[in-house]
């Protein structure tokens, strides 16, 4: 499961932000990290929901890194 989550997120970031390079587990997803804007984060939320049935953006705390997303699914 963890590998699949990492693969989906990395493929997504690679598609929308090819200039960001390989996404590290603790790289911030937004701003000075991978640089996702709000609409790209919304899109990632939809991609994750399609792939795994739930998405971490539905919760009270928005995931900040790939690690946060992996943790969400590990505890879901």
């Amino acid at each position: 499961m963890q590998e699949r989550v990492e693969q989906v997120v990395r493929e997504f970031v690679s598609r929308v932000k090819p200039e960001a390079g390989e996404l590290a587990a603790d790289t911030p997803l937004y701003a000075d990290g991978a640089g996702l804007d709000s609409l790209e984060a919304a899109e990632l939320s939809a991609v994750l929901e399609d792939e795994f049935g739930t998405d971490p953006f539905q919760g009270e705390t928005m995931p900040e890194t790939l690690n946060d997303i992996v943790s969400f699914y590990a505890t879901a």
Partner: protein
Amino acid sequence: MIEFLRRGAEVRPERPAVVTHDLTVSYGELLAQAEVAATRLAALGVDRVAVADHEAAPVVALMAAGSAVGVEVCLLPPDGAEQVLDLIGRFDHTVVVTDRDDLPESALPGGVRRVALGALLAPGDARFESEPPARRPHLVLTTGTTGAPRGVRHDWGRLVRTTERIKPAHDERWLLCFGLHQFAGLQVLLHVFAAGATLVGPAPRRPREGLDAMRTLDVTHASATPTYWRFLLAELRADGGAVPTLRQITLGGEAIPGPLLGELERTFPDAQVSQVYAASEFGSTGSMRDRQAGLSTSVLERGDDADIALKVVDGELWIRSRTGMVGYYGEPDIDAEAWRPTGDLVAVEGDRVVFLGRSSEIINVGGVKVHPLVIEERIGAVDGVDLARVYGRRNPMTGQIVAVEVVASAGADTAAIDAAIRAACADLPSASRPRSIRFVDEVSTTGSKIVRREAQ
């Protein structure tokens, strides 16, 4: 309606009125059926009936019979028994005309009588040959934008008035692509019989059967939704068979994507392509034949004498129609002189009134209003896309995002189409770009394949 059959039967009774793969019914035969059925309808002692059958010839005869004696006929959609029973209850019907085995008398609610369609139309001698009464109601059901059915009350007198400019065209053979329970089907019916032409009514009325009927039943004219035409073009590409020789292509019922007009023109080079802007409530505003998307701004300059006038108010098209509905079922008559919003959002660009979508379909992406139609047009033009539906998908980040369901051509590479769709929309404002692309076998539709864009 009965007057059209009488006129057609008087001119040449043997001319075909309704043609299917199984039978041909002449004007003379159809008129005889309708006048006998009119006598029997009147003898029922009721002022309205629901009809649950859908074969073109008997249903047309029954509609004409209703118009002859002033009995309101309400054609129910071709749904299962449970939905039909629901509609019977919603619209307070006490008589159901049908030959369906799944709607026996015992299945009907208490107080609802079942009358066999075959019995009403059986040969007989007692023909109703008098002039029709002044009040001749006809009820059309619509699903409405909320999905809850509404009854739209029409009157045959007004409906017939809309056909005054139609010239005789006895050699035209019109394909029935809509259900006769739909207002668009009713419009085709009125046009065909006002012109003394022939109605070709295959069953079921899907694009595949429509294409077959075009090829085998000598169809010359066809009116359908843009979605129907897109599916028909896809069927044509898939089977590689002969391209039907059409003289007239009419589109209506949905906003019409510009690229589709071009594709139809290339596929049917000898056909005249027209667009109709119409709705159950206000009727048809006429047809445009200039092969451009949208309406000419001349429709905004018709003046007070016109039966139907249009204007733009705050980006929405408003209409005043003297030939439209009498009112909704269960509600008072509307003022035929009053202006009403159509729910269609438009922009005036040069000499065109361009459709942007329905007011109820606007996608709200983080407070930014996005019109789905513009995006749908772009995606529809991508190679390998047979049909696209753009809608608002709920999203925890932005409220909604732009999502699209795509029906791909047979054998197409969906990954390549996905990339092509994103490339085609890359220069749109960020909020308008599709954020969710799903490939499906068919888009969410109503019975007539009309694309719906409800938030999900």
